[in-house]
């Protein structure tokens, strides 16, 4: 077999995790449990070079995220580098640290839109989930963004402690001038995986939430787009994670590690390459980390012979590893997985009483390791 390999389609999008530092300490954080220290972060010149390389490769859209990207004092210069390379930029922020001057510098540099995280509709509950008094700052940030004429989206990570407030959470979108709200049921990576028992909702909560989403979509049709990210633990179907491994987008972490998805560093033996060491094109097209689960040839049964393999790509590799110990296994969220009972047992288990859970573990300062409960 010496047929030349098919060319690798270029990526569309880049998730730039500019820093792991964050004023918030959300228990659902999907960042890795070992956060990157600030001294290990890429420099401005390295990010500028990364965006030039990304644009040459085919990237047209970037999410500037973290941690809290506003903690990078050179954020406007980073935005300018991406925009100058022809890449559409969206800031993903907690809103903490955004003031009028900062926003003006970012828009002057070419920032195109802002996505603001919200933890709860009730300020006190929101602050408790975030581990920081942030809710009022978020409302101010929303007013600044809409006042500057930028499109505003809200994103909410949903879990047991805020699903009951979903109706009011959706109401924040029209109240704050957002044209989009993304409702993402918690994905259990990083810190969220540690806190799984504390975060998992009940089936009844989810059923009510889905009814709320249907009703609010009708009410807000044409004004606010409501995105409901399906909770794969409850549906019996695997999510088409990342649109396929190494197919649509890539992530660059604060220290320059390049990953097929933000959680992939947890997969052992992946040996992800670093932008400091290799050209981005070679990483995307040829690195072992990006080619390992690209396409369908790596699949085992039941995926290998499944009609859905080109639609769901076998689900999520990180979840397969976390729950089965084998990153090439069928995602246990899928009802066809031989390990599906792992998921069913989790979601059908009676909710543990709060006092049995201990304190949730929160991402702290990046130089610190896991807090002991």
């Amino acid at each position, binding site marked *: 077999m010496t047929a030349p390999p098919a060319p690798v389609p*270029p990526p569309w999008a880049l998730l730039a995790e500019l820093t792991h530092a964050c004023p918030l300490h959300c228990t659902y954080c999907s960042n890795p449990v070992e956060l990157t220290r600030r001294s290990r972060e890429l420099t401005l010149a390295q990010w500028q070079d990364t965006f030039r390389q990304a644009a040459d*490769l*085919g990237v*047209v859209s970037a999410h500037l995220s973290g941690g809290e990207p506003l903690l990078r004092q050179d954020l406007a210069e980073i935005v300018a580098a991406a925009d100058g390379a*022809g890449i559409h930029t*969206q800031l993903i922020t907690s809103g903490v640290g955004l003031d009028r001057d900062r926003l003006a510098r970012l828009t002057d540099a070419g920032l*195109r*839109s802002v996505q603001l995280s919200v933890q709860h509709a009730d300020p006190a509950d929101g602050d408790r989930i975030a581990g920081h008094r942030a809710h009022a700052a978020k409302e101010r940030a929303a007013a600044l963004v809409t006042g500057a004429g930028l499109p505003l989206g809200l994103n909410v990570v949903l879990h047991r402690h805020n699903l009951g407030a979903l109706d009011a959470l959706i109401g924040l979108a029209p109240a704050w001038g957002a*044209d*989009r709200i993304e409702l993402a049921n918690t994905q259990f990576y990083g810190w969220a995986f540690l806190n799984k028992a504390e975060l998992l909702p009940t089936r009844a909560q989810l059923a009510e939430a889905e009814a709320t989403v249907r009703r609010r979509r009708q009410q807000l049709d044409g004004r606010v787009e409501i995105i409901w990210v399906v909770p794969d633990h409850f549906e019996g179907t695997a999510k088409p994670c990342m649109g396929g491994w190494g197919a649509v987008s890539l992530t660059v972490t604060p220290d320059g590690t390049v990953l097929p998805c933000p959680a992939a560093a947890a997969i052992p033996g992946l040996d992800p390459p670093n932008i400091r060491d290799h050209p981005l094109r070679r990483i995307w097209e040829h690195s072992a980390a990006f080619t390992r689960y690209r396409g369908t040839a790596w699949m085992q049964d039941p995926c290998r012979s499944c009609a859905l393999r080109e639609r769901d790509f076998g689900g999520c590799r990180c979840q397969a590893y976390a729950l089965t110990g084998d990153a090439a296994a069928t995602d246990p969220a899928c009802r066809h997985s031989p390990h599906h009972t792992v998921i069913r047992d989790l979601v059908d288990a009676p909710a543990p009483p709060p006092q049995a859970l201990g304190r949730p573990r929160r991402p702290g300062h990046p130089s610190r390791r896991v807090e002991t409960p």
Partner: protein
Amino acid sequence: MTAWYPGPAPGVLLRADRVRGVDLLLLPERVVVLEGAAGEVLRLCDGTRDVPRIVRELTARHPGAPVATEVPAFLDRVRKEGWLR
């Protein structure tokens, strides 16, 4: 009704993708691949031309093409999507 001078909605960027050889509309959470003459039409929507002028310019470039019947309807559809204002 005042004349409409179509221009991209906030956060919307029209770009020629030199890697893929296509025109794109870049939106906050979406990339739209523009087919046929869509890119050429939208490139004229820079907020300085009203619709009759856009039609005139395209007709001059493409004599005989059904510009006058198709372009205004196309622009309306793009406005309804929220990509033009």
